[in-house]
Structures are given as structure tokens and as C-alpha cells.
């Protein structure tokens, strides 16, 4: 029963992952990817990693929702009403994908995976918490803070209101003398943006 459901979820995850590149609709692609991740969360739930499975479902739902909103905001064909070609550089990607698949399958087949089922009363969530806040605390905290800093920096960099004015008008600080040039390097003329298809 466990094996059957894991295989079924795995196959569904692969199929929805393939659909991401086949559908014309960008919003459907985002939610197809979400379904694929949900299946992975489901497999984690079946393998008694309850917290990981439920947290995967939670996080992937929110992330793919944000991606779908961005599709509607920026992409000019979010519903796939126009036929689309969703892939670029297919040959190289297929080659890399096949190579990665071969490497991973080899690694799985050659490694010594544990065989014993987890005891039903084992506090998996407690063990996970102890691991995260004990031996893996450094990785956990630095990754979290780094991600937050990157998000804040991205928003600040892309915001139009610069420190001394509009960002695309140069945002020059006040001059050293009245009406003169500011200190430091003078920015060059720029502010053009690309529009690519």
C-alpha cells in the first residue's frame, strides 16, 4: 500500500512536471509545478516525515501562488490563448537532464539506503527540531538571514524612489557647494531598459 501510493505520487509528480513545459498557459504551468511539489510533500507524509511533508505543501502553495501573480502581471500571454513555445535550447537541456538523471539513478542504486521502517511512536518532528536547532543551527540561521537580506536588497534596488530622488533620473545627492557637483564619482547617462520577446 505504501509502495503503491509512493509510486503513484511519484509518477504524477513527473507527469505534472512535464506538463509545465507543454502547456501554453503560464498560470497553468505555475500550478502544474505546484502539483508536482505537492506530490513530493505527499511522499514525505507517507514516509512518516509529517512536518516536512506538511511544510512543503504550505510553502509550495504560497510560492507558486506568487509566481502565478507575476505571470499575470508581467507575461503577455498568461492564459495561453496564443500558442507559445515554452522551451529554449531544448537539445542542450535534454542532454543535461538525461545526464543528471543517470547520475542520480546511479547514486541511488549504488548507495546503501536504510531498510528498517521508522517506529510509529518515534517523535519525528521533535527529532527534526533538535537537528535544526542543534548541529545544523549555523546553516539554518545564516541561510534564513541571507535570504531575507537578499529579498530586502532586491526590493530596494528595484524601487523607483532612490535616496535623493527618482532612481531613473539619476538620484543625485546634494552638491558640496550650493548648486555644485556632489562628492564622489559622477554617474553616467543611462536609464534605458530592454524590451525583449
Amino acid at each position, binding site marked *: 500500500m505504501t509502495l503503491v501510493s509512493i509510486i503513484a505520487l511519484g509518477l504524477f509528480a513527473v507527469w505534472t512536471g512535464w506538463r509545465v513545459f507543454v502547456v501554453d498557459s503560464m498560470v497553468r504551468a505555475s*500550478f502544474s509545478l505546484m502539483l508536482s511539489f505537492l506530490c513530493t510533500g505527499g511522499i514525505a507524509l507517507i514516509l512518516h516525515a509529517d512536518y516536512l511533508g506538511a511544510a512543503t505543501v504550505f510553502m509550495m*502553495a504560497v510560492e507558486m501562488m506568487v509566481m502565478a*501573480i507575476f505571470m499575470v502581471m508581467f507575461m503577455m500571454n498568461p492564459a495561453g490563448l496564443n500558442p507559445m513555445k515554452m522551451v529554449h535550447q531544448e537539445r542542450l537541456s535534454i542532454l543535461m537532464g538525461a545526464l543528471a538523471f543517470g547520475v542520480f539513478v546511479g547514486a541511488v542504486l549504488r548507495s546503501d539506503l536504510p531498510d528498517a521502517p521508522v517506529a510509529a511512536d518515534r517523535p519525528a518532528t521533535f527529532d527534526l527540531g533538535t537537528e535544526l536547532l542543534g548541529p545544523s543551527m549555523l546553516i539554518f540561521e545564516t541561510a534564513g538571514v541571507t535570504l531575507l537580506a537578499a529579498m530586502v536588497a532586491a526590493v530596494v534596488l528595484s524601487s523607483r524612489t532612490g535616496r535623493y530622488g527618482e532612481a531613473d533620473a539619476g538620484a543625485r545627492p546634494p552638491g558640496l557647494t550650493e548648486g555644485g557637483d556632489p562628492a564622489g564619482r559622477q554617474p553616467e547617462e543611462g536609464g534605458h531598459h530592454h524590451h525583449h520577446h
Partner: protein
Amino acid sequence: MSPLVLTLPVALLAGAWLAAWIDRLAPALWGGRAAGPLAPLRDGAALLARPNATTEAPDRLTRWLAPGTYLVLAAAGLSVVPLAPGVAAVDSPVGIVVWGACEALTVVAVFLHGWSPNSPFPLIGAYRYTAIGLPVMLPSMFVLIAAALPAESLSLIAVVEAQREVWNLVRQPIGLPLFLIVGLTLTLRGPFDFADGADIAGGTSAEESGPGRALWQLARLTMLTAFSAMAATAFLGGPLGPGLPAPMWLALKTVAVMLLTILACHALARTVPSRMLHLLWVAALPLSFLHLALAGWVAL
């Protein structure tokens, strides 16, 4: 999963009917006419008797998937709530995270409901709601984790056990009001009804008619039932109480939270999305974080 799962449809339908009736009793508070208990059935029949509305080039799969998913999420959320001390339909050791996952997927379901008819007003409702719904997840998680701290477990059965001496409402007083915000958002009601608002001609339900519309309204009501049961479990002690059998206590507390939510829905005005967003990030989120910090300090 136990055979108790079979009680879920009955509980959800009964709760949906009760919530719909309380909705129709609410106008009496402002001098209007209150409706009888058959009024929800009449309105439901009026919806079912109409055909489905068709639009041009809709996303057919998600048009039915959205209300269906919403209904399933309400059932999933209710399934982890303990019906008696130590007994739940689905005994999950991470019941709180399961509820969080249901909340996140609800935002997805509402977005898909507005996306699928291929019409401007539903789409506006969909992404307006997402902009409010996603930030509401954060205070919700903080408040629920604070409720779980005295129990030292994410399982709702343990959370109920930890409330034997004193309810979480007493030792964490701002938890329930903050969680009510989450409930109003999840059920698209009152001050958080950005998805189906009157200023966008009915929003995500603007192009819905007939069985599709009835299913969406039913899903909203069942989600209100599931939310009320969850709030009763996390803050009011769930099935604990002297005298009456445990499921009766859970039902009574669920109805109490439902009454509170529906009252808030009809009494509070809805402000513009940008202002609501500002209030959420600047007021609700720091407040919930302080609440969690306080609960953590008390628990240590």
C-alpha cells in the same frame, strides 16, 4: 484515518446550513427582517435551479477545480480537529501545519476561481485577494504556534490536553481576535471580502451561476465551519468541559466562534486594499510576533 472521517460531511453540511441561517438572522440587529431556518434552503434552491453561466474561452478545468478544492480544504482542516479528548478523524502529529497548508491552498483556490472565467472583474478580485490573503498567513501561523507552545507539540490533540486547567483564550488573550482576522479572510467575509466585493460587481463570483455558484457559496460556509472548529480547539479548549459529552462541547464552542465571526463580518466596514495591506503589515504582523514572543517567554 479512522471511521470518524464519515462524520465530516454531516458536520460540514450542518455547519454550513447553520452559518447561512445566522447570516440571514443578522439584519435583525440593524432593524431589518430576520429570515427563518428554511431561508438558506430556499436561496440554495434558487441557485441550483439556474443553469451554469458560460463565458468565452474560460479555463474549464480550474472552473470546477476551484470550488471543489475549497470544499476539500475545509474538510481537510476539520479532519484534524479532535472531536473528543484524544480522538480525531485524522490523528496528525502536525495538525497545526496541516491547517496552515489548508489556508495557503485556500488562497490558491480563490485565485483560480477568479482566474478561470476569463473576465476582468473576477480577475481583479482574484489578485486583490491574493495580495491580502498571503500576508494574513503570517499572523495566522504565529498565533497558532503560540497556541501550541504550552502543549509543546504541533498536534491538536496535545493542544487540547494542555488546556485542561486554563483555556488559551485566558492566557493568550489577543490570540483569538488575531485568528478571527484569518477566519474572515479565509471565508471571504466582511472587512476582508476583497475577492467577491460589491465594488467589482461580485468579483470572483461575477460570472458564476447555477450549480457552480451554489458550490462556491457552500464551500465558503463549510470553510467557516472548519475555521470555527479550529478556533474553538486552539483557544477555547475544544471538546473539554464538564457534564455534556465532549462532541457537544466542541459543537457549542464552534457555534460561539461562528456567531462572533458572522457578527464581525456584518458590523465592520471594508477599507481599500492598499490600506488594509498597510494595516496588516504594520499592525497585525508585529502584534502577532509580540504575542508569540510573550507566549514563548512564558513557556520557557
